[in-house]
């Protein structure tokens, strides 16, 4: 995705410097940027997002890049919580956890599944002590609320 954005900027640079006549798709892409919209070309290779405005999208991109830089530069054992929406395909990450354990312990994948527990804290701050426990954050509810006391989904009370 970053490569796609880079290509768009490099195209802009080449065109504005007059290296070659600009194709219509480059004009269209930068017109969308002028209108504060996320270019369609970027969306096809992008993470899922609820944002339409380019400013919000760039903010989200910046936060996700920071998360991934942390993954690359630090040891993942130190990671206190995985930010699930930072993944291009969050479901694939959850499957990868099963796959990792299946390979490590020689257990068929069909015999493994993830179990989930909703915590009362906003975000975990210490690394997991059990190697099979992973903390995730960044989930949000739409059309329902979470009852922390009873630990179940309830009708939304917000307007």
């Amino acid at each position: 995705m970053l490569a796609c954005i880079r290509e768009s900027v490099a195209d802009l640079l080449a065109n504005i410097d007059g290296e070659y006549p600009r194709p219509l798709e480059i004009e269209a892409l930068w017109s969308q940027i002028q209108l504060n919209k996320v270019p369609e070309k970027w969306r096809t290779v992008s993470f899922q997002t609820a944002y339409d405005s380019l400013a919000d999208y760039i903010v989200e991109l910046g936060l996700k890049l920071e998360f991934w830089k942390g993954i690359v530069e630090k040891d993942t054992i130190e990671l206190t919580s995985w930010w699930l929406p930072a993944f291009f395909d969050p479901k694939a990450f959850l499957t990868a956890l099963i796959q990792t354990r299946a390979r490590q312990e020689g257990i068929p994948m069909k015999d493994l599944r993830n179990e989930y527990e909703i915590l009362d804290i906003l975000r975990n701050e210490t690394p997991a002590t059990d190697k099979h426990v992973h903390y995730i954050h960044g989930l949000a509810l739409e059309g329902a609320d979470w009852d922390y006391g009873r630990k179940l989904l309830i009708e939304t009370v917000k307007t």
Partner: protein
Amino acid sequence: MNSLKTSLRSSRTDSGQQVEEMLKDEQSMLNLFVILQKLLATSSLDKTVTHGGKRYDHNIDQDILPKRDLHDKKVSEIAQVLLAKIDAQFDKDLIQKKFPI
């Protein structure tokens, strides 16, 4: 079984505050894109100015022409900064070392 522990939070995030934080950093990607947005409106990429891409053949007597050239130069400078910023995001050697394919 693997165990995943998570927390739920409101879907309302204070993106306005995040935008302000990023705008404080002059070299942030957000700031660079905002500058580009403003400059492009009066650059040679603006369709209303270029009249279909004929840059110098039309409207040569208009006052906007020097401004357009100045903004083209600035767009070029900002685009170069943005490219350097994107290239500096990740250390490719470190990625290869940590996640070998």
